[in-house]
C-alpha cells in the first residue's frame, strides 16, 4: 500500500482521456440500452457492496469457482465408461463380456471380463489422471488471492473462488481480474486503466478502459463504507465486445458500456490499482462463456484404423455365420426320425443351444457364441496401447533437447498426443508470417531524411537477396556478419539496429539538412502513444507500446539523442542533447491532440505546442496515404524518398512516411473549435464529423522522410523451409501484410526465387479501383469476381500439364480482396487447382477468417494440412487445419492454447516433422499393422480349430490363455515398437528429407500393406495349425506312449503362436535396443513362466492347464522340436520376402539403411545423389535454397548453350 502511494506521488496524474481523439469518445453513445434492461436476456440485478442480498432476494448466482474438468467424483465412472463404450470395438467387447455371463459363452466369464476390466480401468485411470491435472490447474486459479471489501472500508484478502457477485474488489497492478468487473475507479483521476487482453484475443497492445465519471471519486478504501449501487445488466453471454447495463446510484440511472467492463483473464497494466464491482462470476464470465471445446481432431491413421476394425468385425461376422450354418446343419442331422447320430451328445435330451429339433435357433445362439469366441480377431488392448504409446511419444517430443529454445526457456510441447503420427504425413503447411517466420521484433534499421538514405545495417533479406543474386558467396556473407559483430561493441539494443556515423552520436548537426533531421527525430520521439517507464534505480527508460513498430521508433529517437522521457497529463517531456553545447535539457511539449492510428486512416498524428510556442502537427503513416497529403512546397524530396521507400520495401522492410506541419494559432483554434463541437455533438453523424475535422487539419504536410523497420526473420527459417521443401512439403504463407512485404519475405525465405514465374492475382488494377470509387456495390462485386476468375484461368493456362516435362516452376500470389472472390463456391476449386500446381503460394492481406477458409479449402483435396501461427488471428486456421502448431513466442497464448503442438521457433518444425513426425508415423502404422497381424494369427488358429470341432464353439486354448494373449504375451513388444522403433537415426532423417514422403504418400499404412500383414497372419495361423495338428494328432508324442489330448495340443499351438508372433516382431524391428530385447524375449519367457506357475495351481483353478507343461509337454522332446520347427518354418516365407524386398525393391528408408550399413550415409555426395534421384520425377522441390541453387545451375548451363549457339 505504502509503495503504491509512493509510486503515485512520483507519477503525475494522467488524464489522457481528454487528449485521445477516437478511443474514448464513443462512450454512452445511445440511450436505447436502458430500455432493454429488465427484458429477457437483460435480467441480471447486482447489488453492489451487498453481496449477501442476492440470496435474500432469490437471485442465484454461481460461485466464482471455475472448473474445467470433464468429470467430478460422481460423474466420473458413468461418464468415462460411456465415453469408452462409444468406440465400436469396446462396445463389442462389452457386449461379449456381458454375454460371457450366459451359458452361451465359450469360455468362463471371469477370463473374458478380466482383460476388459484391465483395459477399461487403465483407460479410466488415464482419463482420471488427466482430469486431476486439470483440477489442479483450476485449483491454482481458484485459490489466487484478491482484495475484497468486507465493510467499513476494510479490504481483506480472499481467494478467487470465494468472490461473490456484488463484491467490491481492489485489483492491483499486473494482476489478473478474478471475474468480470465494472470499473468504478482507478488511481488515475479520470478513472482510466490499462488492460492487457492477451489471454483473450492475443493482442499484446494495451487497451484503455474508463470508469463512469460519477464513480471516479471513489479512489480510497474508505470511500466504500456506505457505498450502495444497483447494477442491472444483460445476462451472461459470450460476446466479448458488447455489454449493456445500467447503474442506479443515488436515485439516478447511468448507462454502462463495454468501456467499463473488465474481463476475467485480462490483466491490469500500468495502473496501480482499480476498484471494481463484481457482476459476473465463475462460469458466467464472458471468457468462460467463450470457452468452447476445441474441435477434437483425429489422425488419418486412426480413421483408417477404425475402418480396419470394421473390416475385421465384418469378416468376423462372416466366419461366425459360416460356422453357425455348419453347426446348424450338423446339429440338425444328429437326430433324425428319433435316431441319434452322435448319440454321445444326447441330442434327444438337450438344451436349446444344441437342440436338433430347433436347429435354427441353436445356430443363432451359436452365432453369438462364435462372435464371442472370435473376438480375439479384434485386439482388445489396441486403443489403450495406442494411447499409451502416443503419450510416450509425446513425452519424447517434449523432452527433445534440440527443440528447446534457450532464450525463451520454452521446450516443445505436444498439447495433444492424438496427432503424433499425423505429423509424419503433412503435405501442406500453412504459415502465418509475422511472429512465425519473423520474430515480430521490429528493429529500426534505416531511414531516409530529406532525400538522403541513412543506415548501413544489412538486413536478413538483403543477405538473402545478395545470395540470390549470386553476388556474394556464403563465405562472404558470413564475413559480413562477422565484421558486423565486431563493430558491434556496444551491447545490442533491442529494437535498434541502426548504424550510421553520419548521424549517430550527435553528428547529424553537420549534415546539410540538420534542422530537418532534428524534426525527424523529434517527430519520432513525440508522435506515438507509448508510455515510458523509468526504472527507479538505474534511471533507464523503457517503453510500453501498443505495437513493436512504435517501440522501435521511440527507442531509435532515444538512441539518437531525443529521449522521450516522460508523459504527463497533457505534455511530453523529451530530453534532448543540445548538439552545440552538448548539454542535456528537457524540452516540454504541450500535447494538444492525439489523432490515433486506425487501419482505415493508416496514419497517426499529434498536435503539440513547442516550448517556443510554435504549434506543430506531426504525422506518420503509410506511403499510400501520406504522399497525397503533402503540400506542394513539402514535396521537395518526394522523388528520392519514394525511391528509398521502394528500395526499403524491396529488402523486406516496413516503411512509414513522416511529415509535419506548422499550424498558426488561428488555424489551430479553428480546428480545435470544430473538433470539440464534433466531439460533444450527440447526433448520429458525430463520428463522421470528427473524421472530417481531423481530415481538414492533416493536409498540406511537409515531407521529412521515411523510416524503415526490419521485421526480423526468425533464426534458421530459410534453411528450415528448404528442408521442408526437400521433403516435398508445400508451404503456403498466409499473411495480413501487404503484397510487397509478403513478396519480400517470400524472397528472403527462398519461397520465391528468380526464374520463377509469379502468377499474381490482384484487384489493384486501375479500372477496378476506378469502379470502386463509383461505388455501385453490385457491379464492383461482379466485375471483381470476373477479374479474379480470368486471372486464375490465365494462371492455369500458363502452367504446362505434368506430361510435358518442364523445369519451370510457378508461384501464386493473391491478395485478400481477390481471395474473397476466389474462395466463393464456384471459383474455389479452380483456385485450389491452380494453387496446387504452384510451388509456392502466398496470400497477403488475408483476414483470420480467410486463413481458416483457405485451410479448409486445402483440406478438401484430402491433403494433410498443418497450420502454424502465433497470434490470435491464427486461431481459426490452427483449429481448422489437421494439425495446428502454435509458436509460443512473444504474442499471447491464444494460438498456443488453440494448437496441438507448441514450439518456440519456426525452425523446430523441421525436427518436429522430419524426425518425430516420421518416426511416429512409422511407429504407429507399424504398430497397428502388427497388432492386427498378431490377432489375426491367433484368431485364425481358433477358427481353424473350430472347423475340427464341428463348429461347436470349443476353443483350443485354456480360457486364460485366450484372455491373456492380448494382455501379457503379445502386447509389450508392440508397445516397444510403437515407442522406440526408428528406421534411421534422427540425423539421417534430417539429412534425407525425401524420407518424409513415405508418410505423405502413406506408403507404410496403405491398404496393400495392411492386407499384406493380415494375409501374413492368416498364413502363419494356417501353418501353425496344420503343423501342430499333424504332428500331435494321432500318435503318441512321448516315449511312454501317451497321446496328446486337447489340453496338450492347445498348449503346443499356443506356444507356437507366442513364439511366432514375437519372433515376427523381432524380424520386423529396425532398432533393437535392450528394451526391445527385454520385451520380446520377456514375453516368450513370460509364457513359459505362466504355464508353469498356472499349471501348478490346484486343478480347480488351472482346469485344463493343470500340469500340462511340466508333466506332459516339457519332458517330451517332440514338443521342443515342434516349437523350433513351427517357428522357423512359419517365418521362412516372411524372411525370404523381406530379404528380397530390402535388396531388390528397397524403399527409401531401406536405401538409407544400406548406406548407413556401408558407412556411406554421411557422405554429402552420396546424400545429394540419393536425394536427387528421388525427386527427379516429382516436381515437389521447387522452392528453397537448394532449388534455387539447382535453378541457378540450370540457368547458367542454358545461357552457356545459348552463347554457343549464338
Amino acid at each position, binding site marked *: 500500500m505504502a509503495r503504491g502511494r509512493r509510486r503515485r506521488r512520483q507519477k503525475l496524474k494522467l488524464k489522457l482521456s481528454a487528449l485521445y481523439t477516437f478511443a474514448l469518445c464513443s462512450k454512452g453513445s445511445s440511450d436505447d440500452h436502458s430500455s432493454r434492461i429488465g427484458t429477457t436476456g437483460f435480467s441480471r440485478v447486482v447489488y453492489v457492496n451487498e453481496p449477501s442480498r442476492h440470496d435474500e432476494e432469490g437471485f442465484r448466482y454461481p460461485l466464482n469457482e471455475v472448473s474445467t474438468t470433464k468429470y467430478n467424483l460422481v460423474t466420473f465412472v458413468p461418464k468415462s465408461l460411456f465415453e469408452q463404450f462409444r468406440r465400436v470395438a469396446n462396445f463389442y467387447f462389452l457386449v461379449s463380456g456381458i454375454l460371457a455371463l450366459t451359458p452361451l459363452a465359450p469360455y468362463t466369464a471371469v477370463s473374458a471380463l478380466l482383460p476388459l476390466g484391465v483395459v477399461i480401468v487403465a483407460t479410466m485411470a488415464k482419463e482420471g489422471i488427466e482430469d486431476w491435472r486439470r483440477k489442479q490447474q483450476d485449483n491454482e486459479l481458484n485459490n489466487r488471492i484478491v482484495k475484497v471489501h468486507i465493510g467499513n472500508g476494510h479490504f481483506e484478502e480472499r481467494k478467487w473462488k470465494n468472490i461473490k457477485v456484488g463484491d467490491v474488489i481492489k485489483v492491483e497492478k499486473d494482476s489478473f481480474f478474478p471475474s468480470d468487473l465494472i470499473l468504478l475507479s482507478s488511481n488515475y483521476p479520470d478513472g482510466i486503466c490499462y488492460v492487457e487482453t492477451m489471454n483473450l484475443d492475443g493482442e499484446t497492445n494495451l487497451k484503455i478502459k474508463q470508469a463512469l465519471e460519477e464513480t471516479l471519486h471513489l479512489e480510497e478504501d474508505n470511500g466504500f463504507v456506505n457505498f450502495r449501487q444497483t447494477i442491472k445488466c444483460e445476462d451472461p453471454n459470450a460476446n466479448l465486445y458488447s455489454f449493456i447495463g445500467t447503474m442506479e446510484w443515488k436515485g439516478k440511472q447511468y448507462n454502462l458500456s463495454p468501456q467499463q467492463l473488465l474481463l476475467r483473464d485480462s490483466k491490469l497494466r500500468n495502473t496501480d490499482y482499480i476498484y471494481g464491482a463484481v457482476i459476473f462470476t465463475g462460469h458466467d464470465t464472458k471468457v468462460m462463456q467463450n470457452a468452447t471445446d476445441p474441435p477434437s481432431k483425429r489422425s488419418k491413421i486412426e480413421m483408417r484404423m477404425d475402418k480396419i476394425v470394421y473390416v475385421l468385425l465384418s469378416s468376423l461376422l462372416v466366419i461366425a455365420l459360416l460356422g453357425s450354418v455348419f453347426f446348424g446343419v450338423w446339429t440338425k442331422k444328429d437326430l433324425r426320425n428319433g435316431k441319434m447320430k*452322435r*448319440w*454321445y*451328445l444326447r441330442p434327444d435330451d*438337450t*438344451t436349446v443351444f444344441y437342440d436338433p429339433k430347433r436347429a435354427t435357433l441353436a445356430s443363432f445362439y451359436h452365432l453369438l457364441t462364435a462372435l464371442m469366441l472370435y473376438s480375439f480377431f479384434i485386439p482388445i488392448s489396441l486403443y489403450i496401447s495406442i494411447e499409451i504409446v502416443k503419450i510416450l511419444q509425446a513425452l*519424447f517430443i517434449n523432452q*527433445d*533437447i534440440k527443440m*528447446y529454445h*534457450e*532464450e525463451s*526457456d520454452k*521446450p516443445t510441447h505436444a498439447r495433444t498426443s492424438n496427432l503424433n503420427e499425423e505429423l509424419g504425413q503433412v503435405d501442406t503447411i500453412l504459415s502465418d508470417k509475422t511472429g512465425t517466420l519473423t520474430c515480430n521484433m521490429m528493429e529500426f534499421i534505416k531511414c531516409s531524411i530529406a532525400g538522403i538514405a541513412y543506415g548501413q545495417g544489412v538486413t536478413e533479406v538483403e543477405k538473402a537477396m545478395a545470395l540470390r543474386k549470386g553476388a556474394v558467396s556464403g563465405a562472404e556473407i558470413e564475413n559480413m556478419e562477422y565484421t558486423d559483430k565486431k563493430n558491434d561493441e556496444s551491447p545490442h539494443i533491442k529494437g535498434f539496429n541502426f548504424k550510421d556515423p553520419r548521424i549517430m552520436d550527435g553528428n547529424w548537426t553537420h549534415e546539410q539538412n540538420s534542422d530537418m533531421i532534428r524534426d525527424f527525430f523529434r517527430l519520432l520521439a513525440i508522435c506515438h502513444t507509448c508510455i515510458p517507464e523509468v526504472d527507479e534505480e538505474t534511471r533507464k527508460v523503457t517503453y510500453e507500446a501498443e505495437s513493436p513498430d512504435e517501440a522501435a521508433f521511440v527507442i531509435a529517437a532515444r538512441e539518437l539523442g531525443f529521449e522521450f522521457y516522460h508523459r504527463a497529463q497533457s505534455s511530453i517531456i523529451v530530453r534532448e542533447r543540445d548538439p552545440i553545447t552538448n548539454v542535456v535539457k528537457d524540452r516540454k511539449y504541450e500535447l494538444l491532440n492525439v489523432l490515433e492510428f486506425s487501419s482505415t486512416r493508416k496514419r497517426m498524428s499529434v498536435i503539440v505546442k513547442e516550448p517556443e510556442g510554435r504549434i506543430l502537427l506531426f504525422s506518420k503513416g503509410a506511403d499510400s496515404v501520406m504522399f497525397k497529403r503533402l503540400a506542394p512546397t513539402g514535396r521537395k524530396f518526394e522523388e528520392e524518398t519514394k525511391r528509398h521507400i521502394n528500395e526499403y520495401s524491396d529488402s523486406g522492410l516496413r516503411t512509414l512516411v513522416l511529415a509535419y506541419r506548422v499550424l498558426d494559432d488561428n488555424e489551430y483554434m479553428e480546428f480545435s473549435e470544430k473538433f470539440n463541437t464534433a466531439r460533444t455533438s450527440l447526433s448520429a453523424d458525430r463520428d463522421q464529423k470528427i473524421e472530417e475535422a481531423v481530415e481538414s487539419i492533416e493536409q498540406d504536410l511537409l515531407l521529412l522522410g521515411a523510416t524503415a523497420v526490419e521485421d526480423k526473420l526468425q533464426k534458421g527459417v530459410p534453411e528450415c523451409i528448404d528442408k521442408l521443401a526437400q521433403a516435398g512439403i508445400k508451404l503456403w504463407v498466409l499473411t495480413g501484410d501487404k503484397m510487397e512485404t509478403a513478396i519480400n519475405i517470400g524472397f528472403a525465405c527462398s519461397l520465391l526465387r528468380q526464374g520463377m514465374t509469379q502468377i499474381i492475382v490482384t484487384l489493384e488494377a486501375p479500372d477496378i479501383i476506378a469502379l470502386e470509387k463509383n461505388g455501385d456495390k453490385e457491379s464492383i462485386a461482379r466485375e471483381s469476381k470476373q477479374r479474379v476468375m480470368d486471372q486464375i484461368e490465365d494462371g492455369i493456362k500458363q502452367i504446362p500439364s505434368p506430361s510435358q516435362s518442364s523445369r519451370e516452376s510457378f508461384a501464386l500470389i493473391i491478395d485478400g480482396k481477390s481471395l474473397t472472390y476466389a474462395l466463393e463456391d464456384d471459383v474455389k476449386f479452380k483456385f485450389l487447382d491452380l494453387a496446387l500446381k504452384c510451388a509456392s503460394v502466398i496470400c497477403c492481406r488475408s483476414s483470420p477468417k480467410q486463413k481458416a477458409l483457405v485451410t479448409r479449402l486445402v483440406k478438401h483435396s484430402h491433403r494433410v494440412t498443418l497450420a502454424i501461427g502465433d497470434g490470435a488471428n491464427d486461431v481459426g486456421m490452427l483449429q481448422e487445419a489437421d494439425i495446428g502448431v502454435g509458436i509460443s513466442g512473444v504474442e499471447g497464448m491464444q494460438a498456443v492454447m488453440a494448437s496441438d503442438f507448441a514450439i518456440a521457433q519456426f*525452425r523446430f518444425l523441421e*525436427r518436429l516433422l522430419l524426425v518425430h513426425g516420421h518416426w511416429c508415423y512409422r511407429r504407429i502404422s507399424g504398430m497397428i499393422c502388427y497388432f492386427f497381424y498378431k490377432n489375426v494369427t491367433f484368431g485364425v488358429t481358433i477358427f481353424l480349430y473350430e472347423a475340427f*470341432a464341428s463348429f*461347436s*464353439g*470349443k476353443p483350443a486354448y485354456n480360457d486364460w490363455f485366450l484372455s491373456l494373449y492380448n494382455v501379457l504375451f503379445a502386447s509389450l513388444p508392440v508397445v516397444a515398437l510403437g515407442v*522406440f522403433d526408428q528406421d534411421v537415426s*534422427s*540425423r539421417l532423417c534430417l539429412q534425407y528429407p525425401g524420407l518424409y514422403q513415405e508418410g505423405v*504418400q*502413406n*506408403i507404410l499404412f*496403405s491398404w*496393400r500393406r495392411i492386407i499384406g500383414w493380415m494375409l501374413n497372419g492368416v498364413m502363419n495361423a494356417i501353418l501353425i495349425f496344420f503343423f501342430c495338428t499333424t504332428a500331435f*494328432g494321432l*500318435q*503318441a*508324442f512321448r516315449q511312454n*506312449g*501317451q*497321446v496328446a*489330448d*486337447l489340453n*496338450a495340443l492347445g498348449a503346443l499351438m499356443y506356444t507356437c503362436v507366442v513364439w511366432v508372433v514375437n519372433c515376427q516382431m523381432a524380424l520386423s524391428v529396425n532398432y*533393437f*535396443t535392450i*528394451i526391445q530385447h527385454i520385451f520380446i524375449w520377456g514375453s516368450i519367457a513370460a509364457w513359459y513362466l505362466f504355464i508353469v506357475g498356472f499349471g501348478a495351481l490346484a486343478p480347480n483353478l488351472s482346469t485344463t492347464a*493343470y500340469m500340462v507343461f511340466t*508333466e506332459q509337454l516339457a519332458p517330451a*522332446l517332440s514338443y521342443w*522340436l515342434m516349437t523350433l*520347427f513351427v517357428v*522357423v*518354418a512359419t517365418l*521362412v516365407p516372411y*524372411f525370404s520376402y523381406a*530379404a528380397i524386398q530390402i*535388396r531388390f*525393391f*528397397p524403399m527409401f528408408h531401406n536405401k538409407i539403411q*544400406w548406406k548407413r*550399413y556401408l558407412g556411406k550415409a554421411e557422405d554429402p555426395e552420396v546424400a545429394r*545423389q*540419393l536425394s536427387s534421384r528421388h525427386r527427379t*520425377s*516429382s516436381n515437389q522441390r521447387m522452392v528453397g535454397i537448394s532449388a534455387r541453387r539447382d535453378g541457378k545451375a540450370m540457368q547458367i548451363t542454358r545461357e552457356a548453350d545459348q552463347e554457343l549457339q549464338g
Partner: protein
Amino acid sequence: MNGQAAGSSSGGSGDGGAAPRRNTRKPKYSKFTQQELPACKPILTPKWVISVFVLVGVIFVPIGLVSLMASRKVVEIVDRYDDACVPPNTTDKLAYIQNPTISKNCTRTLTVPKDMDAPIFVYYQLDNFYQNHRRYVKSRSDTQLRDASKANDTSTCDPESVANGTAIVPCGLIAWSTFNDTYGFVHNSKNLTVDKKDISWKSDREHKFGSDVFPKNFQKGPLIGGKTLDPNIPLSQQEDLIVWMRTAALPTFRKLYGRIHTDLKKGDSITVALENNYNTYSFSGKKKLVLSTSTWLGGKNDFLGLAYLTVGGLCFFLAFAFTLLYLIKPRKLGDNNYLSWNRNPAGR
C-alpha cells in the same frame, strides 16, 4: 547440413550458462529421452540372409534325418474292426450293436510285420468322434470327480447328472460314453497280459480323480452309454475312464488301452479276442485297434522328420537361390532408380 547447424546452435546459444537459470524448463539430457539408446540395427545383407538359410539347413536336415529314422524304427499294426466284427449278413449294424442280447465277441488275427520290442502300446482309435464338441467337453464335474463329499455337484453334467433321483458319479456325457470295447491278445496260444496300469497321467490319478470317490448310480439311466464301472474301485484307479476323460483334440484320435510287456517277433501272429460293444455305427465312425512301439520321439509319425528335412532342404535351396540372385543381379548400392512410391500409387 543446415539441419545440423540449426539444431546445434540452439544448444550452444543462449545465456552462456554463466548464471544457470533457476527453474529452467530445459529437458534433461539422457540417451533415453533423446532416443539415442545404443541399438543393434539389423539389416538383411546378402551375407546375413545366406548364412541364416545355411544355418537353418545345417540344423534342420540332421534333426530331420534323426527324427525320420526314429519314426521309421517304430512298428505299428493298425487293424480296423468295426465292419469286420459285425456278422457279415447284418443289414442294420445299428440295431446289431444296440441289441444287448447278442454276443459281441469277435476274433481278429494280426501278423507282426517286424520285430516289436516291449513295451508294445495298445491303442484304440476312433474316427469321426467329436470328443471336442463343446457340449461334450463341458459335460463333466471336476469337483465331483475329485472330492467324495461333492458327489451332488452335478450341475454341469446335464443330461447325465441325475438318474432315479440321485446324483450319478461320475456324471456327465464323457463318463457316460466311456469306450467299452475290450481286447484280449493270444500269442503262440499264450495269453498276452495287457498291463492297464499307468496308462493315464499321474496328475490325473493323484489330483483330479479322488481315491475315495467311487462310482455310484452309474449307467442306471434310461440309456446306457458305454462302459460300466465297478463301484468298488475308486475313480483314481479306473484308468480307462481317466484316459477317456482326457478329451481328444481332434475328431480322429487314439487312446491308450494298455501295454504289452512281451517282445514280438516278425511274422508272429496274434489273435485278438475283442468285444465289439461300442456304438460308432450310428455316426459311421471307424474303430481301429493299434499296436505300436515307441521311440524317444513317440509313435510312428514321419511328419516331423519329413517336415524338418523339407524345410532344411528348402533353406539350402533358398541359400543357393539367393546366392545366385545376388551374383546375377548385383545391385550397385548407389542405384536408386527404383522409386518405391512412384511405382505404387496404391499407397495413397
